[in-house]
């Protein structure tokens, strides 16, 4: 089944707010509003004809106004009028695959930066456990319903979430000085001071 047919299936059989994102990005995806992600995922897994039994990947990125402009340069991005327009948001992606039917789909959603909260899908796929911990670690999205939401790669006492665009790298950690050396600073372009 291709992604358009899957999109029609979701539209007919669930009451979730979905839209088909054909021109955005290199692969087509199905955009789901953040409050109906869990119901769409449950449908995708439990429907016999779809049978998505593998969550291959779950990731995301911090989208600002400037990164939106970057996409506009390469792709014809249509403005989504049904969605509340946030200046900054975190875009999340789920890549699903079915071994039985041998088809795949990309689900997309977004949460506002001020209230970065997404439903956990650990109850559907066990592999979501570590993937969601990684997104929490790097982007700071919290998942209510996750059994064990801790940082997965950075130390537990680390401050901030590094893949957010407003993140500032620390110059010292546990008494270890990690500020750039004089030699490193000499390579910086002139007129730029930090």
């Amino acid at each position, binding site marked *: 089944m291709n992604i358009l047919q899957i999109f029609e299936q979701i539209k007919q059989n669930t009451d979730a707010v979905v839209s088909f994102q054909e021109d955005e990005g290199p692969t087509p995806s199905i955009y789901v509003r953040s409050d109906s992600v869990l119901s769409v995922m449950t449908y995708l897994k439990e429907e016999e004809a779809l049978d998505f039994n593998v969550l291959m990947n779950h990731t995301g990125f911090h989208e600002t106004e400037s990164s939106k402009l970057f996409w506009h340069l390469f792709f014809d991005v249509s403005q989504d009028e049904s969605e509340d327009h946030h200046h900054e948001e975190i875009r999340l992606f789920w890549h699903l695959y079915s071994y039985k039917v041998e088809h795949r789909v990309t689900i997309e959603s977004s949460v506002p930066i001020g209230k970065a909260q997404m439903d956990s899908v650990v109850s559907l796929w066990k592999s979501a456990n570590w993937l969601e911990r990684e997104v929490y670690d790097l982007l700071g999205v919290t998942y209510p319903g996750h059994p064990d939401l801790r940082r997965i790669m950075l130390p537990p006492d680390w401050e901030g979430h*590094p893949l957010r665009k407003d993140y500032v790298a*620390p110059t010292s950690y546990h008494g*270890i000085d990690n500020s750039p050396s004089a030699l490193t600073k000499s390579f910086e372009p002139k007129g730029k001071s930090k």
Partner: protein
Amino acid sequence: MKTLYNKFESDNIVLTSLDHLVNLARANSMWYLLFSTACCGIELMQTGGPRGDLERFGSAPRAVPRTADLMLVAGTITLKMAERVKILYEQMAEPRYVISMGSCANSGGLFQSAYSVLDGVDRVIPVDIYLPGCPPRPEALLSALIDLQKKVKKEPYFRKKK
């Protein structure tokens, strides 16, 4: 004889200084701590393999810091790892030596401006030999080991200042 000062013919008697003899033994038994954190570790394995054959210089890999003389820091050190590097170094018995292998261990290398990478392992532990390269070839690592052996042979072991 170049290595030993004086050797009597056919009597099995050798005259030399104790410093020289001990240093000869130390330099040719540099057991190193297996400590690979990135792709430099692959070159380290190659050096230990049949072509490089690190063991012909008396360097055997050790899995425990307590029995190692040399720490080969092979790879990128993150801030999280830096604390562990320090603990491992402190567990090694003196005299202990450190070879910083590759650009990442020397200065942070390619990942210098990353948020989680330590800009050079010498911010945490003292380094004896800096080995450039990304990653260095096995021949370069052998050359670094030979340089370290030269350094060890020059040390006044019994008259070392504290």
